[in-house]
């Protein structure tokens, strides 16, 4: 089990990552935006996106192999729910122009009201969804 110190440390590394990207090439480290631009941005604007995602996935995957608290690999949720959740996350982050990293880490760091509104909205929607799934029992008559 990871401790709060791992959380703060990991969070600070994520903050440093976003700072490095902004300082070096002037871009926002929003994962959903970087992914979406991979297909739709002008050709000259794609190489840094691909490089960022390669770094993200490679470093993350390697680190996971050495952690005592890495998540279990076998499928742990039903396929239809995984597909539905993926569709909603992909659709919603594109519609709302950002996810936990773009609106959360970077938007809040820029003190953007728009991002704060987005973060509050997706947090509340997610908390309500978990509440319904885990704590509301539907009793059929």
């Amino acid at each position, binding site marked *: 089990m*990871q401790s709060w110190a791992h959380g*703060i440390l990991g969070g600070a590394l994520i*903050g440093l990552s976003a*700072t490095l990207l902004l300082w070096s090439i002037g871009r926002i480290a929003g994962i959903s935006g970087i992914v979406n631009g991979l297909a739709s941005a002008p050709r000259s604007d794609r190489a840094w996106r691909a490089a960022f995602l390669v770094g993200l996935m490679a*470093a993350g995957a390697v680190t996971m192999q050495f952690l005592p608290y890495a998540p279990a690999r076998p499928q742990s949720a039903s396929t239809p729910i995984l597909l539905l959740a993926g569709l909603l996350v992909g659709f919603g982050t594109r*519609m709302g122009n950002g996810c936990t990293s773009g609106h959360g880490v970077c938007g809040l760091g820029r003190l953007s009201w728009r991002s704060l509104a987005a973060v509050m909205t997706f947090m509340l929607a997610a*908390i309500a969804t978990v509440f319904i799934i885990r704590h509301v029992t539907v009793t059929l008559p």
Partner: protein
Amino acid sequence: MSRSVIAALASGALFGLGLAISGMTDRLVVLGFLDLYGDFNPQLAFVLAGAVMVTALAFRFVLRLPRPRIAAEFRLPVETKVDRPLLFGAAIFGVGWGLIGFCPGPALVGLAGGLQDAMIFVPAMLAGSFAHYLVERRGKIGAE
């Protein structure tokens, strides 16, 4: 490799390292944070706090620079108003996030790390994003 590609690669690597160390690739840890009325796990709050403490401080200094180190200009979001697409999009994302506990970054890392859940989730996520692109394009054509 150009310098901007190397910078992006290093930035992505730091991000992936941070997500893995903080435990965010474990969707059950994330669901634990969202489960206020059950087995609450505050880990995500520590991660977000750690990240925003760094960005809130560092971005102020970076954005005072005349330009980024390796690019002509800062490319920040221009939209500032809170509109319906923002709130609807965020709400739809939130429901999907709450269903499983994956948001885009941890899902991509999980995919690379061999999590079977992510292998199903990520293709659906890309399809969802593409679906919005199609809907938006259709709306634009209809509005002309």
